[in-house]
């Protein structure tokens, strides 16, 4: 198990954004993180990546506790935040070089070239990030996340705003990466989950309402598409 989350809560003032959730994820199984907007998906991801501290509970990534060993946790995670923030004034290679320097990657030019190849950025690699279209920016974000070859990938809505061709490209990339790494990714597109995820967690109002293999989830909730299951589960509460 490379991610173990144990009863994590996050309270903002009066509001409980995340309410005692526990789950785990292991390599080779892509985990789809679903839930309505505001359910606490991004907050959970921000906690796991050590961006914001949890109010209570504990979690570990690759055996390192979030609170005790945050630097090791960060070293093992590749994170693509929601809305994909990027340094628009930097050139693609500059941005990747910056990330490579942070992780002190040996032979960084070779690795950067590899990642550019992997994410299909070849034609755009000499441009400023500000000059790239949304799809290519998303690839830069993904390239930054996988640059240091992390064991765990956390991707917050990596496919929003892309055209169908780009979505399929990114999806295949995630699928490939998921063969050896632990991947958690959130999305609102149900077909996407059915296409690439093996494990599904549905979260609603800060609580987990389903955590199962995709097939099991479908069996348990009678026949019907994942969309129907999602609507049923998140409307009940």
């Amino acid at each position: 198990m490379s991610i173990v989350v144990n009863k994590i809560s996050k309270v903002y003032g009066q509001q409980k954004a995340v309410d005692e959730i526990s789950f785990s994820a292991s390599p080779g199984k892509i985990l789809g993180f679903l839930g309505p907007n505001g359910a606490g998906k991004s907050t959970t991801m921000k906690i796991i990546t050590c961006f914001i501290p949890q109010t209570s509970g504990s979690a570990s990534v690759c055996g390192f506790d979030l609170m005790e060993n945050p630097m090791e946790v960060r070293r093992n995670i590749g994170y693509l935040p929601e809305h994909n923030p990027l340094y628009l004034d930097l050139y693609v290679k500059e941005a990747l070089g910056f990330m490579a320097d942070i992780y002190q990657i040996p032979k960084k030019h070779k690795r950067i070239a590899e990642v550019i190849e992997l994410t299909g950025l070849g034609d755009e690699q000499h441009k400023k990030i500000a000059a790239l279209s949304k799809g290519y920016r998303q690839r830069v974000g993904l390239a930054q996340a996988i640059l240091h070859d992390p064991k765990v990938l956390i991707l917050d809505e990596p496919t929003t705003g892309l055209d169908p061709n780009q979505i399929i490209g990114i999806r295949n990339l995630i699928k490939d990466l998921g063969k050896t790494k632990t991947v958690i990714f959130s999305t609102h597109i149900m077909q996407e989950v059915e296409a690439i995820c093996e494990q599904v967690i549905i979260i609603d109002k800060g609580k987990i309402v389903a955590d199962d293999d995709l097939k099991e989830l479908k069996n348990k909730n009678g026949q019907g598409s994942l969309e129907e299951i999602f609507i049923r589960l998140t409307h009940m509460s």
Partner: protein
Amino acid sequence: MLTILKKDLADFFNSLVAYITIGIFLLVTGLFLWVFPESSILDYGYAGLDSLFNVVPYIFMFLIPAITMRSIAEERKEGTFELLATRPLTDWQIVIGKFLACLSIVLLALIPTLIYYITVYQLGVSPGNIDSGAVIGSYIGLLLLGGAFTSLGIFSSAISKNQIISFAIAVFLCFFAFSGFESISQLLSLQNIGSYITGLGINQHYQSISRGVLDTRDLLYFLSFISLFLLFTHIILRARKW
């Protein structure tokens, strides 16, 4: 730390911020020193750079906040701060890296003004008739002053997501730290402790270094001033709730 410094410098030079601020700084100091009759060396008639060293703190007061206002505010607004904070970097590395990047721009703006020194050096009735000790002291003073303003600017940049607000706060803080204490000390009711209050301000220490005497007390003052505001910045970043 050095990676942040490198990235921020690349950012400054890619986005023209560096060229424009340095250019404007040189333009304004050039105008004050050689063109405007009130402060021009040619009209003044003495081979000294006093007018330069008197005017630069006031230019820095606006210029340094303009350089620093983006550094953390923009990262927060654009969300790239999340990118930094989730990498294996400590908050100290981020704060100090950003501080050094902004200070490098200040340094790069100062270096070309050495030409003014060389010019005045040559222009003296007998060349070289200039108080070089005072000039060296003043440059060290300016650098320390720049450092103090930069730390104030970084601090202001951390407290708001809005660049304009950071800029306004930074200008006010710089102005107050530079000459505010001195003015307050002149209040009638504070006259007993007036000299202590003046000692809190930057101006007194800057003037003292400018005379060419590098007193450890002044040096200590500037270093603790800078450390204090970097510490405040660090505290703000740690208490992040966004």
